[in-house]
């Protein structure tokens, strides 16, 4: 296993659409292990996408377990993930390993249903909401060559209220 260098904006590879994984083999699992080690080495990252280390395949790892206040599925390796349904919209603050020292507010779906494959090609299906759903959307954007800075609605304020605590 090895920590790979994280590509940073404006690296062109971050703007490319990643290719689907076709072979669910040992090479895939080794690359996933490197990707995860790279994510764990970063500053409290809750997800990472293959293109961030220059691997142009549709693979993301998300782990929202550090936010127990939100429902989450823990550590997930998602191969060829696809969001098949989404609902609601909510503003939240995002940053990115590939865009150091910058954060901004981004609108994301509040709830979603996602289909993917695991590292051995087994089908997966998850319902996600809140923080975990946001992480999934952020990472899947990377597979489509999009960074959160392409979606920032406001650097410094919510354009509309998120959850209101009374």
């Amino acid at each position, binding site marked *: 296993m090895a920590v790979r260098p994280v590509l940073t904006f404006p690296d062109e590879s971050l703007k490319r659409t990643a290719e689907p994984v076709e072979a669910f083999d040992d090479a895939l699992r080794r690359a996933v292990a490197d990707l995860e080690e790279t994510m764990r080495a970063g500053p409290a990252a809750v997800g990472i996408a293959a293109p961030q280390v220059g691997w142009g395949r549709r693979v993301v790892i998300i782990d929202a377990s550090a936010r127990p206040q939100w429902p989450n599925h823990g550590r997930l390796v998602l191969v060829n993930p696809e969001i098949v349904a989404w609902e609601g919209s909510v503003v939240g603050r995002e940053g990115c390993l590939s865009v150091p020292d910058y954060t901004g507010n981004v609108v994301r779906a509040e709830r979603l249903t996602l289909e993917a494959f695991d590292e051995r090609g087994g089908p997966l299906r998850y319902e996600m909401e809140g923080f975990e759903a946001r992480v999934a959307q952020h990472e899947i954007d990377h597979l489509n060559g999009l960074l959160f800075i392409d979606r920032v609605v406001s650097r410094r304020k919510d354009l509309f*209220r998120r959850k209101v605590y009374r």
Partner: protein
Amino acid sequence: MSGWFMLTVVGEDRPGIVARLTAALYDGGCNLGEASMLRLGGNFAILLMVQWEGGAARLAALVEPVTRSLGLAQHVDRIEGRLHQHVEPDVGITVSGSDRAGIVAHAVGAFAEAGLNILNLESGVGGSAERPLYIMHIEGQALEGIAPLRSALEILRREGIDASLTPIDTLIG
């Protein structure tokens, strides 16, 4: 050795202010840092970090032909600040109510007592001339946690000021 300066420009809004000002700075060899520029009550206000080889007086002289021709006031301060010094907010607060005197001082005073360090504050007056509505949005650091801020909001609400709070939980991925 080039240093950082804070350039402040304020005056009646008209098209072309930003373009002409930044062109003059670029042509003069300045490097631009972070900026906040906005229209407030028919005026345009610019706060701009400028990196520049010379001193404050020469920077002021560089900008002056532009601001004079546009009828704007300008001010230059040397600053110690630099880039990559961001502090992440962990709470957002929205306050709204009828536009009455003292609403800002009252609300932010309560928040300060509850441990809020304000990083950004924006406010606007909406509604109509007869029934103005005041809306303020703050982002900051809850230095003593969220709980004392929630109590402060509760008190404001009892006084007829609508206030809500949202924890900001920044995702890094």
